[in-house]
């Protein structure tokens, strides 16, 4: 999550605790003392943090603060994905991705892979599908929206599968599929 401005998250001021641990011997016990509050203050003058993990590592956050950052993250990621995919049911897709955020790198990577086989102007869609009797069976689909005949499209998709997708689908943990939709 590059370029997350502190000012966007916490307001004007916040402090960063040092992560070094100190161990104090106390009779027979070794007590791990939390990092000493060597406090540094950063003003909101455009200071940028590299990642959410850096924030959470250095700063004790309330659940509300973490949730707020996560929502911002999901919204930011989703906006970038929405540029690559047509999404009819936005809330379904957004909810699925937020529950399975490990899919985000794949969702960003796959369009370029598909363009290599179907052409750079190929349209793609994201859709959540589940068996009506088993809502918990839902999976996310990347759909190649093609005007090709079934024979042509399937032949290209088979090449894509063989060359790349079958070797990478383990990253999707059975939650994401790539398929064809005839339009």
């Amino acid at each position, binding site marked *: 999550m590059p370029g997350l401005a502190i000012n966007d998250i916490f307001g004007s001021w916040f402090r960063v605790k040092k992560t070094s641990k100190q161990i104090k011997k106390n009779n027979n016990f070794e007590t791990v003392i939390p990092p000493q509050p060597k406090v540094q203050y950063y003003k909101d003058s455009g200071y940028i943090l590299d990642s959410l993990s850096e924030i959470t590592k250095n700063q004790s956050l309330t659940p509300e603060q973490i949730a707020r950052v996560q929502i911002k993250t999901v919204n930011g990621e989703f906006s970038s994905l929405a540029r690559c995919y047509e999404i009819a049911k936005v809330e379904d897709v957004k909810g699925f991705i937020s529950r399975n955020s490990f899919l985000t790198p794949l969702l960003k990577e796959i369009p370029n892979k598909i363009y290599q086989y179907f052409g750079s102007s190929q349209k793609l869609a994201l859709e959540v*599908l589940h*068996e*009506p*009797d*088993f809502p*918990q*069976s839902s*999976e996310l*689909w990347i759909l190649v929206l093609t005007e090709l*005949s*079934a*024979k042509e*499209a*399937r032949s290209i998709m*088979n090449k894509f*599968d*063989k060359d790349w*997708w*079958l*070797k990478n*689908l383990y990253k999707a943990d*059975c939650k994401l*599929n790539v*398929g*064809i*939709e*005839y*339009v």
Partner: protein
Amino acid sequence: MFDWNEFKILAEKLKNEKDEASQRTATSRLYYAIYWKARLQIISKGYRYVRNQSSHKQIWDEYLRKSGLDNQDIGNKGKELHKNRIKADYFDEIKKLNDLVEDSFLVADEILVILKRV
């Protein structure tokens, strides 16, 4: 014991009918013919699925998780066939039903070939 391939034979007959109901039913029956073939084969090798969850997802997921590209290809194509079946049975509108049906038959035949290899 019922021969689930009878569903494929029925699907091939229905595919030649022009009406939408036949085309949709062809897609659905075809799926079940392939699903049962894949399911019986994996169960014969010792796999057991959990009840009260989608057996379809479990069966195809199991193929995806097995080692070897052939197994993963079966799982991948099985899910495509399953998607087409869900659309045929539950979606009010399908833009190019003929292509969806034809594609389902292509995928089904490919799965049958791979199932013989694994």
